[in-house]
């Protein structure tokens, strides 16, 4: 297997799908001549030309709508938002049209579009550039929400998203683009809607997605030194949520901690906790806890920002609480 960056894994996915299917095209700000704001689309303009790698004006609402309209008549657009913070401008097209056309038309019209870009925080980008909105989109019936944490998952899931007949919100991470990982050779797809156990364990389940997967894995390593064996479940897809993998794991360990990037109120973890307590109440030895981002706009200062994020010490403290161990 080759070791590839998350960024290049995405590039490979887009390139492969564009080669396989002429109706797939990429549009967004700086995707063409600039080679991509985060270089995800490096080299694609050269290979596919300006009709298929389309540089747009700074008009999120407009070009998201263009993507949706094109999808309604049979193309398969990949609409890149430079970050999901800016996609707020386009949310009308994603939520009011893309998510609902199939339903409102009684099944006549599909919108096989992928909306992708980095979400959540990076380093000191401050309040307007650090937001995690996955729970907003996961709230909408008609959308799928996918968030890969590793290069292998990024490639496999983006390919699946492009082939999906439904609109997919595909949230990456600026802090993930440079991470490296093994990616299988050859053609492969990772199924949407299936979580992945990244580390097996027996004592407690850590449920995480995207950037918090590495946080959970680091915490698990440190916990192992204390004799606590943590299982790490990477959700990979937020909607539809893989109940089975989560419930099987927590039925085994009887304790769970959700680790998420977004704010606490009505966040992804709230849904996970609801599913667990509703379905396997009798398996729980303690309440399910969540480690989330601090419930504040993201501050600029480096230390304040660090304090606001989920990190291994916070995860470890939560694990000790659910295991009734002194902190």
């Amino acid at each position, binding site marked *: 297997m080759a070791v590839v960056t998350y960024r290049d894994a995405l590039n490979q996915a887009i390139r492969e799908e564009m080669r396989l299917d002429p109706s797939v095209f990429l549009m967004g700000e700086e995707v063409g001549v600039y080679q991509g704001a985060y270089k995800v689309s490096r080299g694609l303009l050269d290979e596919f030309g300006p009709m298929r790698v389309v540089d747009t*004006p700074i008009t999120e609402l407009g070009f998201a709508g263009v993507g949706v309209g094109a999808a309604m008549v049979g193309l398969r657009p990949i609409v890149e938002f430079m970050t999901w913070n800016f996609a707020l401008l386009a949310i009308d097209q994603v939520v009011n*049209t893309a998510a609902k056309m*199939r339903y409102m*038309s009684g099944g006549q019209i599909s919108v096989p579009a992928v909306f992708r870009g980095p979400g959540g925080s990076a380093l000191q980008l401050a309040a307007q550039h650090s937001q995690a909105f996955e729970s907003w989109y996961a709230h909408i019936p008609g959308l799928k929400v996918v968030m890969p944490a590793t290069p292998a998952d990024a490639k496999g899931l983006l390919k699946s998203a492009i082939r999906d007949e439904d609109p997919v919100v595909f949230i990456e991470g600026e802090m993930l683009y440079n991470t490296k990982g093994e990616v299988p050779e050859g053609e492969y797809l990772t199924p949407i809607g299936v979580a992945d156990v990244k580390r097996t364990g027996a004592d407690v389940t850590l449920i995480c997605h995207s950037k918090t997967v590495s946080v959970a894995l680091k915490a698990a390593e440190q916990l192992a030194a204390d004799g606590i064996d943590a299982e790490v479940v990477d959700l990979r897809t937020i909607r539809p949520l893989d109940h089975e993998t989560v419930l099987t794991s927590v039925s085994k360990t009887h304790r769970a901690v959700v680790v998420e990037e977004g704010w606490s109120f009505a966040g992804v973890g709230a849904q996970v906790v609801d599913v667990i307590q509703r379905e396997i109440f009798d398996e729980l030895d303690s309440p399910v806890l969540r480690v989330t981002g601090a419930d504040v706009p993201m501050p600029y200062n480096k230390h304040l920002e660090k304090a606001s994020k989920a990190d291994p010490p916070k995860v470890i403290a939560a694990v000790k609480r659910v295991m009734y161990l002194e902190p």
Partner: protein
Amino acid sequence: MKTTERKPKAGSAPSVAVTAAQPDAETQRSWLRQMLLIRRFEEKAGEAYSLGKIGGFCHLYIGQEAVAVGSLAALRGDDYITASYREHGHALARGISARAAMAELFGKAAGCSHGKGGSMHLIDASLGFLGGHGIVGGHIPLTTGMAFAIKYREEDRVAVCYFGEAAVNNGAFHEALNMAALWKLPAIYICENNRYGMGTALERASAVYDISERAGSYDMDREIVDGQDVLVVYQAMQRAVKRARESKHPTLLEIRTYRFMGHSMSDPIHGHYRTREEVEEHRKRDPILVWSEKLKADGLIDERGIKALDADVISEVEDAYRFADAAPDPEPGELWTDVYAGNREQGTGNGGVS
């Protein structure tokens, strides 16, 4: 309350008909029938709404029939159309049957959107009639996207968008037209300027009164068109269609028209924001009246013929009403279908106690 009608600037007079290039008699009479169909259908829909058979919102097209009929007559069967929520007339003119349209207004399974869309979302993909959209201006970028797809696939279709003048100050309008002009896409943007965005007269919402002037911001071709004369509309559309099909340039058509009813069924005809006198004045240029007079003058139909047409249309509408009234509601299971591609047959079932 006094309303003012600003005079348009010089150089932007509405287009006039080119009498030499008229379609044949049969076609001209068919336009009258179509306009009558829309008129009687809308009247019936208004009645049905007051009886509670149509719920939610109902936006009637009465007074604007010539715009839909004239413009759609210039299109091909494989062209793409999007419209706002005042789209009953466009749907009928495009070929959705009165039965399918009325049944959709009634929310029945036999409706063109299977009862899942309603008045604002009449959709028939087989006719290229892609809705029926509820967000003001929100669908305009969709048409740009459809025109993009046409160019992408190197076809010669055309994508058409109908919206009201209140949408032209919206960000989506601006973004969509800019990209269409920038990328040279085969799109036609038809602004049906009926002078009132719900209760707000155009001059109270727009710094620049002439809608068509906005095209100048994008270096886009434009025309101002008299929307009460179906032939004028038809010919203006023909020019725009030619421009789109052949030279891949978009056009902004400002078609000046008037709606005789309120914005929607909850809105009075006059009183709040316009006077009875104003409405009465505009009724003199009722498009059906205008066209009937023209056909009679040209000897293409007489009064008796008109009455026969009207009677025929009325019975078609009555039939549609009875059909819609008797048609069954969607099965309860339809609540869950068509959310995602996979679940036409089975729903996700996530509702109620979960």
